[in-house]
């Protein structure tokens, strides 16, 4: 596989097949680009070798995509006159006019940017204290600040765009936010108890993380172990579709929790065609998963430095290779699996870098990539990314036992992209808005809503499941989701059978975690219990 001639679009893949739509053309900064219907703008541009989409506000550093799931805003571009479009979640269309949001050259702006880079205001908020003297200082500074402000032009009038449909209200017993394994399971078990359920996800298909996973999952047979991730997603998706009392709302992002158990959401129908959806329910399950942590190193914002999930989305969903030769930071399961997936897609992996003295992920995953000849450099860290405009290499160094880089151990590695796979953090904003008590539990990945064994948070009627309740895995997400769905249902209807079933699931979770590898999770779950 490693020998295949490089072409950005994956044609043959041992596991996945990519159905590309009609061939179309669009424009980037006036240049004609070929794409296929169904591709995102980011993906099509990436395939055409374009990595920089915008630049940073203050220092005008080049920016490319990072997360590929609409969470980080580093892929903004102007599309058909509309500024600040997240190109990683916008599908390309015939004739689209996409423009990078690089600022027009202005002498004043460049001077200020240069002055800022030299540390004109060394302290945060320094401009409040420095720009006070003399009648000329502020008027001049104000002009400079205005010249630098903002991303993108205020949108041009475009009469053909911007259809906003009347808002819609959904009312029922249970809203589940997040259509990953946890959310789907919660919806299914709520529906089994006869509840009227809405299952909401921002993507155009259900499955969450599973959609991107090509490997056979671990865990117990009952919870789909041995099946490939994306296939588990499809099985669950089909099951959800078989319930008439589950309304699935796709392409729908929940943006806020409001008093009175109301959620505000936006459903995307087409580019610049959106609908507001208000969701009101007696019970809610938040199963919004997690997002990726980043790592601090020099040039970590260079286009080509991407989140592991971003690379997976580009490669396993869009079918586009992230580059020719990648460097992976982090040898946990995600990093190791990603290395293997890159090899599957015909991409070379220069090395996997791990700061810990040992590999964090499962032994089998590590063995698989070592067999394929990929070095895993433990007790190593990345010091900086190299390259102008996009990644051309990296400097790594060995760490001593106090985690300091050993002088003289620096070495340059070649690579044209870098994947940051240093762990996930539970996504907690919605439960936080709902008033759920949060707690910092490092064993579970960071801030988590406090929750009991029935997955209820400190706010009665609000439940969580999956990675939102602690970074773990698919089988536990499924079990947690089932428990949350049943708990929500049992608080509304009486059902002895369901109560028994729920106790069985709780026991199954305990058994599942009853092994040395899950010691950390057990500890974390104890800490996250309400007092």
């Amino acid at each position, binding site marked *: 596989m490693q020998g295949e001639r490089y072409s950005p679009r994956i044609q043959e893949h041992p596991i996945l097949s990519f159905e590309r739509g009609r061939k179309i053309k669009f424009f980037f900064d006036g240049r004609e680009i070929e794409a296929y219907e169904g591709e995102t703008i980011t993906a099509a541009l990436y395939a055409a070798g374009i990595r920089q989409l915008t630049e940073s*506000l203050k220092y005008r550093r080049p920016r490319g995509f990072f997360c590929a799931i609409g969470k980080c805003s580093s892929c903004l571009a102007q599309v058909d*006159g*509309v*500024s*600040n479009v997240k190109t990683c979640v916008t599908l390309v269309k015939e004739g689209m006019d996409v423009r990078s949001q690089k*600022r027009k050259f202005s002498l004043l702006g460049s001077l200020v940017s240069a002055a800022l880079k030299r540390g004109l205001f060394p302290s945060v908020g320094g*401009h*409040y*204290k*420095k*720009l*006070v*003297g003399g009648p000329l200082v*502020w008027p001049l500074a*104000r002009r400079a*600040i*205005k*010249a630098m*402000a*903002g*991303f*993108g*032009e*205020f*949108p*041009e*009038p*475009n009469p053909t*765009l*911007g259809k*906003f449909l009347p*808002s819609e209200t959904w009312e029922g017993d249970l809203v589940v936010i997040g259509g990953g394994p946890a959310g789907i399971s919660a919806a299914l078990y709520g529906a089994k108890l006869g509840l009227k359920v809405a299952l909401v996800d921002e993507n155009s298909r259900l499955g969450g993380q599973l959609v991107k996973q090509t490997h056979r999952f671990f865990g117990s047979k009952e919870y789909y172990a041995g099946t490939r991730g994306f296939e588990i997603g499809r099985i669950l998706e089909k099951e959800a579709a078989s319930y008439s009392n589950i309304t699935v709302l796709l392409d729908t992002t929940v943006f*806020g929790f*409001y*008093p009175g158990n*109301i959620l*505000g959401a936006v459903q995307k129908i087409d580019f*610049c065609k959106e609908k*507001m959806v*208000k969701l009101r329910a007696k019970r809610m399950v938040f199963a919004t998963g997690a997002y990726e942590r980043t790592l601090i190193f020099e040039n970590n914002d260079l286009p080509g430095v991407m989140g592991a999930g971003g690379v997976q989305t580009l490669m396993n969903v869009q079918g586009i290779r992230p580059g020719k030769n990648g460097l992976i930071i982090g040898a946990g399961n995600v990093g190791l699996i990603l290395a293997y997936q890159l090899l599957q897609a015909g991409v070379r992996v220069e090395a996997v870098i791990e700061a810990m003295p040992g590999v964090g992920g499962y032994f089998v995953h590590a063995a698989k990539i070592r067999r394929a000849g990929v070095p895993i450099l433990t007790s190593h860290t990345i010091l900086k990314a190299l390259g102008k405009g996009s990644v051309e290499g990296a400097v790594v160094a060995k760490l001593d036992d106090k985690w300091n880089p050993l002088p003289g151990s620096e070495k340059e590695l070649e690579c044209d992209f870098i994947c940051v796979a240093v762990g996930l953090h539970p996504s907690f904003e919605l439960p936080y808005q709902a*008033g759920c008590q949060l707690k910092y539990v490092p064993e579970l990945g960071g801030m988590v809503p406090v929750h009991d064994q029935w997955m209820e948070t400190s706010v009665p009627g609000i439940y969580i499941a999956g990675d939102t309740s602690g970074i773990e895995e698919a089988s536990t997400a499924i079990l947690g989701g089932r428990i949350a769905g049943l708990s929500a249902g049992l608080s509304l209807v009486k059902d002895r059978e369901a109560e028994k079933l729920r106790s069985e699931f709780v026991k199954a979770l305990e058994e599942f975690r009853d092994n040395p590898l899950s010691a950390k999770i057990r500890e974390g779950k104890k800490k996250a219990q309400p007092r």
Partner: protein
Amino acid sequence: MLEKAEVVVIGGGVVGLSVAYNLVKRGVGKVSVLERRYLGSGASTRNCCGIRSQFGAEENIRLARESKKIFQGLTAELGFNILHIKGGCMMLASTPEEAEILERNVRLQNRLGVNTRLLNPGELRARFPYLNPDKIRAASFDPTDSKAHHDAVVMAYSEACRRLGVELNTYTEVKGFKVEGKAIRAVKTSRGEVKCSRVVNAAGVWSRQVARMAGVNLPNRPLRAEGMVTEPFHYFLDPTIVHLNGPLELTQTLRGELVGGLADGEDFSLNLNSSLSFAENFCKRAVEIFPRLKFANLMRQWAGYFDVTPDGSPVLGPAEEVENFFQANGFSGHGFTLAPVVGRLLAEVIAKGKATPSLEPFYPSRFREGKLIVENTAPVDRLSWASTLPEASSSAPSR
């Protein structure tokens, strides 16, 4: 915390801080500010940063005109950049009634030396191509109106206070007063008691509750007003745009975000949770006036309150029932504009112990005497002024 202060100021918002700063500057002795949460946690950092004198009552226009002058030099005076931008303010009217108000106000403002102008439709289109001409019947523009960053103004005053020795007590809630005869002798707080000879009530929308603890009845009513910002765009909008209906407000910050707000109804809960109905109503109304806004994304929203009086004008000066208890509240949505001048005038009154002519019309006694000011740009008619009103809840805000 001090056991004894010359003056205690209740409320660490822009008004309380301005009063405290001007008091120590005049050398009245020890000044202590008591703030329930953090400085600026009330309306002072939740507003839309507009500074204007386009009012409908002579007293308010005069006051605002003076405040605008102080804002001009505030950065230099306080040694802290408040990011002041003189971009003007445009008031918009859609209905014939609103248009009439604008026309009447412009005449009055001109008479008082404020150079507001009515823009004709041609001028409007040329200068503000972003606005929807079909929705606008009349527009008045004052190029000397301005905006400043609300956080910066709060920080500027609080740093100056600190420098001059004002004691700033945060997370210190006023719980009651020790009143003897017609005077407050001490203020009871969650952190103990402070003896004092004078007290200023600058507790924003909570002023009515605070006043009641001293046996003083204020007529003020809470009007919920919420705000939002979009993602930042390249800078293009210097003026603040205010539609009389609401009021609805929109301008751009120096980061490039469009910041806007809308007052949307009586709410005695005084909670600071933002609402979905604001997001929906604001977007609908703002897009009507400013069609291209439909391509902008709302990034954050927040809630606050206007502290509205029956005549839409502030309550300034000593209470009738308790003579050493000075009011600095009831700003009815204009407290950011008026804070600098109110601080100055009130400090003068407190220090000298006698009234200034420009402040007298705002004395609390005007409501009993029936000498109302009648400000037609304030949303007074949106509130119920019946005598049997629910008690404002005294619980702390949740956000």
